[in-house]
């Protein structure tokens, strides 16, 4: 796979190959080098002016080595020949500390998928002046709403990133991606009535962002919640908006990682092939989606990415496997090795989780809910969910639903259920799906759940 755009892409490909060679020289039986290079900018604006402007580049390499079933990892920022040789020694020494695992090793069938559209040529046409103007437009849009009392954060960021991966079994590949996003936080109401709202958008380049819509979303969300009060506790239908649905979906995706399953840390252990959700729910992990923020030709250890159906018509189809967990299970992998950066070795995880949209608008879902709760924000998901039993109680805010319409805003409440009951309670998925960067990278519409426990006063 050639890195589009060329430039110094070849430099990191060379560094990756040199890193592997250095490790082999250091006496390991197998080695893999993951090299990254990026240029990124971030602009924060406040009150019509620049608050901060970051324009920077960074690079790094991570070296994973195997020796007699033991694996070790070393990472650093020094890509020189000497730096890589030193790193190889450190990685080999680290490997000697670990206990052997007969399944550890490089993937058997490395390769790269054809993925279109990872890189937008439009990004290079943007200078910092245009970027700033976009950020200011987001802020102006949010402040233009009469109910907005403050816009405390507006952030625009973009990046060009190159990745090169090489291993001692002859795999060498690389790719380039571009990304751009903007978000804003608005406040509405004063004193005890004050509430916040978030608006965001993400794309491959700034030209595909809609600054007005991002500002409007932040404003609308804040205004919709201003004056919220603690509701009375009850059991009722709950409509999760896209942000909230994405947070839950991300959590569920993490529990489908084979590592968590094999080690008894997942509530989905032993449930493959079973009905775990209603027919309305179809979930996939798609590492090749054209507009997916986490899309790439190969995963974190060089297996070709593809679309993996996880829940089809309510049935749990498979877990997510990298090379290690696939070998442990004695089955083919799903190219689900992920890297958060060159600083950590690959581990099993999700790429782009996608919930198949349904055919109903938010208004129709509200009508279906009748009397219930529309949740627009959850907090404390990671401390509030027991990953093994799946029971949860998380903080939330949103709007009451009365007679199929949005009613009074509410806050300081918790919603409680367990993930299995929640999946079995999915009544409908909406039609208005979007990418949300919560819980990893998730594409989802609002999701209507039959019933949850709402605790308040």
């Amino acid at each position, binding site marked *: 796979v050639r890195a589009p755009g060329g430039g110094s892409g070849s430099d990191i490909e060379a560094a990756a190959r040199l890193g592997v060679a250095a490790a082999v020289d250091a006496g390991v039986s197998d080695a893999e080098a993951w090299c990254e290079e990026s240029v990124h900018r971030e602009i924060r604006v*406040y009150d019509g002016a620049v608050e901060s402007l970051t324009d920077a580049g*960074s690079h790094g390499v991570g070296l994973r080595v195997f020796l007699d079933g033991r694996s070790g990892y070393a990472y650093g920022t020094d890509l020189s020949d000497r730096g890589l040789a030193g*790193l190889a020694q450190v990685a080999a020494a*680290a490997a000697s500390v670990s206990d052997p695992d007969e399944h550890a090793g490089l993937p058997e069938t490395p390769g790269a998928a054809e993925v279109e559209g990872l890189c937008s040529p439009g990004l290079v046409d943007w200078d910092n002046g245009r970027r700033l103007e976009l950020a200011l437009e987001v802020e102006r849009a949010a402040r233009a709403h009469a109910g907005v009392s403050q816009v405390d954060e507006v952030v625009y960021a973009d990046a060009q990133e190159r990745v090169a991966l090489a291993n001692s079994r002859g795999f060498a590949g690389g790719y380039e991606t571009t990304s751009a996003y903007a978000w804003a936080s608005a406040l509405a109401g004063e004193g005890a009535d004050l509430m916040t709202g978030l608006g965001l958008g993400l794309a491959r380049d700034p030209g595909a962002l809609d600054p007005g819509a991002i500002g409007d979303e932040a404003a609308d969300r804040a205004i919709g919640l201003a004056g919220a009060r603690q509701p009375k506790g009850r059991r009722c239908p709950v409509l999760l908006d896209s942000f909230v649905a994405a947070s839950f979906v991300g959590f569920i995706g993490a529990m489908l990682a084979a590592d968590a399953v094999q080690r008894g840390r997942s509530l989905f252990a032993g449930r493959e092939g079973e009905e775990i959700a209603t027919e309305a729910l179809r979930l996939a992990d798609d590492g090749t989606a054209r507009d997916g923020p986490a899309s790439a030709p190969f995963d974190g250890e060089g297996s070709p990415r593809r679309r993996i159906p996880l829940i089809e018509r309510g049935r749990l189809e498979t877990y997510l496997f990298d090379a290690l967990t696939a070998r442990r299970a004695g089955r083919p992998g799903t190219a689900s090795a992920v890297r958060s950066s060159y600083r950590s070795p690959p581990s099993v995880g999700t790429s782009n989780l996608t919930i198949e949209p349904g055919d109903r608008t938010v208004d129709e879902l509200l009508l279906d809910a009748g009397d219930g709760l529309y949740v627009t924000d959850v*907090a404390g998901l990671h401390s509030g969910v027991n990953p093994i039993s799946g029971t949860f109680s998380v903080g939330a805010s949103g709007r009451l639903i009365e007679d199929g319409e949005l009613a009074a805003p509410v806050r300081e409440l918790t919603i409680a259920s367990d993930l299995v009951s929640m999946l079995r309670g999915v009544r409908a998925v909406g039609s208005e799906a979007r990418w949300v960067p919560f819980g990893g990278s998730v594409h989802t519409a609002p999701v209507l759940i039959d019933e949850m*426990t709402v605790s308040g006063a």
Partner: protein
Amino acid sequence: VSLVDHELARRVVERALVRGGDLAELYAEDRMTFGLGLEEGIVERPQAGAERGASVRVVSGDASYFGHVDGLEEAELVRVADSVARALRADARAPAALAAAAGGARHPVKTAPQEVEAARKAEMLHACDERARSGAPEVAQVIASYAESRRRVEIYNSDGTSAADDRTRVRLGVTVVARRNGIVETGHETRGGHGGFEIVAERPEEVAAEAARKALTMLDAREAPSGQMPVVVGNGFGGVLLHEAVGHGLEADHVQKRASVYAGRLGDELAPRFVTAYDDGSRRSEWGSDGVDDEGTPTQTTTVIEEGRLSSYLYDLVRARRDRVAPTGNGRRESFRHLPVPRMTNTFFAPGDATPAELIAGAAHGLYAVSFGGGQVEPATGDFVFGVAEGYLIEGGKVTSPVRGATLVGNGLEVLRGIDGIAGDLDIATGYCGKAGQRVPAGVGQPHVRIRALTVGGTAA
């Protein structure tokens, strides 16, 4: 040996100001890390890191211009200074001469963790595994991790600041999963600090024993009730309550944008007279301590609540300048690739006169929240959420059954007003705090504290 030669640092700062600016700064860092994990009795994922780099920041009015680079070679530092300067449009400013290097308080390192053989660290994890499993057939899984880091940082700025800090931290964490008749519970415990290997060298297996005790205790738990009730919060990690419910709202960036419920409240009586709270980044060997902050300001003890009155916000250089006050040593950053922002260091309530037993006896019927799994706050509203990791019912003034699935929701101002007792058993635990995409070590602590009424969201039907 310094990371950047003084003369070179002076030139970089000078170049950064060629097109104006009120403050220019060079931040250089060299970071070495090592970590190791254990699961299913197997030591795995040994990881060693070595990173070096620098950033240049120019502050002009209310705007900060920032760039960073990997490596500390002269050509790289000059290039990033020039690149940052290009964003400005004014006339050159001359920097003040650099003062002699200041270091602030050092936190002793008896045994440099890099000098301890990796095999001993692996043995320590095995010892934790063994101890957690000993005599407890219900223990299904033990997950242990060890991490050490050494960060050397240097800060030079156009006000003449020249500061250096050498920060070594170690941390041991153990999570135990216990299983009985289909019920699964986890217990988590950590030990760590700003110091050397000595922090974990003494009886590390006690950390595992404590994690196991929590998991096994929770096996007998009932589903948590819901509703308003008195809550006694445990010492140590219970301090997450103060950190989330109050501390974030005192960070001056939120305050200056009026995106904090504590904005404009300095001097106001927000808590009863017996409540005092501190942020203290100079506290010896504590997890959230440093010699100087990431802008070269010496760390200090800041009284944030004094006898019930809000007495100070937490400042970095930029926000302190804007409020015309002295910085409080809270300008922190995750690495040279991040802009400093006001962050807590070690935040805790001062000890009071009560005993934990008195607090519990006075609660009649309520919840005893010994430790939290984590928490989150919206500083603008003060609304917070905590997951209770280890909790018990209080019935008739006595601690009775453990409860699972309890979540506390509330508001920072309400909590401060509602404190009706503080014990004398101050303890500080090790946490990581996330803000603006940056993760930094933060000490959270308190003695036992009782709150008159909080909303508990439980899972009981």
